């Protein structure tokens, strides 16, 4: 076993121990749902910063964004405007959501929807959307993890990484069971520190070894032009709208995901949320620098069948073994932290909003349901990745992201106005979900797979844009039409759901 594998094993074993020790953090009663799932809403600015950073900037992000740029160039950089404009949204919308959630004891977005609109159907729609969107996201963390196992080789790659994946996820499920949200929160400190060290070292060392950024851009530009499927260093004009709508649509849906909501609600005050909105862009800067490593991989002349290997291979090529081992550990731990939070967040949704009666108080057995569902989510992710080709997880994730955005109207309008009827919001949601699914399936071809963007042709002019965004427009139109129809009927005092 080389020094890289040893460093990797020591770090991963270390965070596993931390995961179990986290149960004793703050001497809380972990049989209480709110303590297990939200750590009793006690996290201050620093803990929240590490937790949210560890949660939102997943291993998959740090692998897939450079991979996208490696494959296609400038369009992949949309992750940077996305991870920038998300924060004004957090500052205004999510800080407000935190306030109402604290006042009314909400643990999920669907808790808020139920209380705000009094509609069981809308509550279930929101909960199911969140769970469906979280499932492929967990699977993709496993894909990130498996990339690292391939890179490490040896016993890690045994059975195409299946053995190592099963061990990793069994351990993850075990410490999430015992420690709840405290486990990923504590581990996030290690994960984020490792990621910062690895990325900063990478953006200093790798461009220098490749002859500087100007040279990297010149070489990769030529390589893109010569590629069979050409990439671009600058955005082709036809992709401007797609680029902008991908950034905006993704920014609007980021904080609707159950894992984001869970981490945000664990903060101890709305000001902690606001301060974090100002401080979290540090991670976006890191992501942007990491994204540029995709071009370094082009300039380095890598010819990869799996572009996800671009970043691990850069570390293996330009750094000593032990440092590459640390970078691999950073990516692996970076997969485990969000996977745990996603499992907890979707388990919260199921236990609070689907299981049990329609009531403002949670069923007494909810924590047990949540814990078992958390295990089931981990198992689902594992089975999905082991049983199906990676591309299905990616397609499912694309669909999940487009679906997630469809609860944006209910969530945001619910926070700021009382004008909309739940039946109208439900009609908008159903229309958006159907439109997103239909458009995504329509883009599928056996050769190119499914695309996040679709070209719509209206009155002879065509425009390529983000499917989730187009579906949101359909959602909004249906919402307005349904509102007009409902408002013409006599006023109902108790909205039926």
């Amino acid at each position, binding site marked *: 076993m080389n020094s890289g594998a040893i460093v990797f094993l020591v770090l991963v074993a270390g965070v596993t121990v931390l995961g179990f020790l986290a149960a004793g953090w703050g001497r809380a009663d972990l049989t209480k749902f709110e303590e297990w799932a939200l750590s009793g809403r006690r996290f201050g600015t620093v803990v929240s910063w590490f937790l949210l950073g560890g949660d939102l900037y997943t291993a998959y992000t740090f692998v897939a964004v450079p991979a996208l740029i490696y494959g296609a160039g400038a369009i992949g950089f949309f992750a940077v405007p996305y991870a920038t404009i998300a924060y*004004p949204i957090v500052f205004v919308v999510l800080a407000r959501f935190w306030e109402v959630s604290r006042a009314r004891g909400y643990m999920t977005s669907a808790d808020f929807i139920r209380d705000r609109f009094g509609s069981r159907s809308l509550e279930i729609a929101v909960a199911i959307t969140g769970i469906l969107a979280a499932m492929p996201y967990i699977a993709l963390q496993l894909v990130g993890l498996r990339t690292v196992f391939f890179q490490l080789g040896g016993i890690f790659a045994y059975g195409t990484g299946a053995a190592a994946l099963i061990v990793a996820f069994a351990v993850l499920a075990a410490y999430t069971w015992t420690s709840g949200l405290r486990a990923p929160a504590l581990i996030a400190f290690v994960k984020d520190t490792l990621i910062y060290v690895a990325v900063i070292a990478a953006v200093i060392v790798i461009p220098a070894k490749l002859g500087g950024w100007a040279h990297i851009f010149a070489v990769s530009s030529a390589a893109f032009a010569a590629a069979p499927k050409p990439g671009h260093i600058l955005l082709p004009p036809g992709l401007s709208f797609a680029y902008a709508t991908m950034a905006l649509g993704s920014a609007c849906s980021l904080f609707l995901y159950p894992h984001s909501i869970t981490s945000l609600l664990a903060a101890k005050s709305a000001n902690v949320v606001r301060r974090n909105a100002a401080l979290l862009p540090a991670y976006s800067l890191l992501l942007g620098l990491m994204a540029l490593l995709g071009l370094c991989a082009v300039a380095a002349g890598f010819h990869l069948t799996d572009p996800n290997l671009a970043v691990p291979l850069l570390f293996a090529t330009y750094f000593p073994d032990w440092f590459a081992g640390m970078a691999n550990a950073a990516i692996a731990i970076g997969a485990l932290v969000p996977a745990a939070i996603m499992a907890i967040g979707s388990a919260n949704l199921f236990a609070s909003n689907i299981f049990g009666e329609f009531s403002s108080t949670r069923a007494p057995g909810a924590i047990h349901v949540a814990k078992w569902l958390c295990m089931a989510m981990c198992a689902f992710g594992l089975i999905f990745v082991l049983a199906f080709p990676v591309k299905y997880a990616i397609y499912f994730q694309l669909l999940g992201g487009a679906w997630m955005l469809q609860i944006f109207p209910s969530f945001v309008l619910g926070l700021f106005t009382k004008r909309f009827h739940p039946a109208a919001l439900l009609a908008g949601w159903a229309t958006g979900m159907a439109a997103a699914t239909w458009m995504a399936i329509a883009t599928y071809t056996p050769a190119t797979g499914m695309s996040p963007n679709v070209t719509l042709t209206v009155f002879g002019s065509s425009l390529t844009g983000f499917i989730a965004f187009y579906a949101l427009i359909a959602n909004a139109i249906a919402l307005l039409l349904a509102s007009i129809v409902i408002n013409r009927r006599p006023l109902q005092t108790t909205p039926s759901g």
Partner: protein
Amino acid sequence: MRKNWWYALLLAPFLGLLYPPLYDRADPALGGLPFFYWYQLAWVIVTSLLLGIVYLATRERTRE
């Protein structure tokens, strides 16, 4: 109500980033990075500063 005007600052990143033709060019480059790339990275820092300013200007000092 007057302090709510500070929130208007938060529109700036949307205006600066959501119209790509505004910044989709190679020049002027900075440290070898084409304008397209460093312009967007600069917005990350500017947005963080704007959020810090709005936070300080609008927070309620009596609480916490």
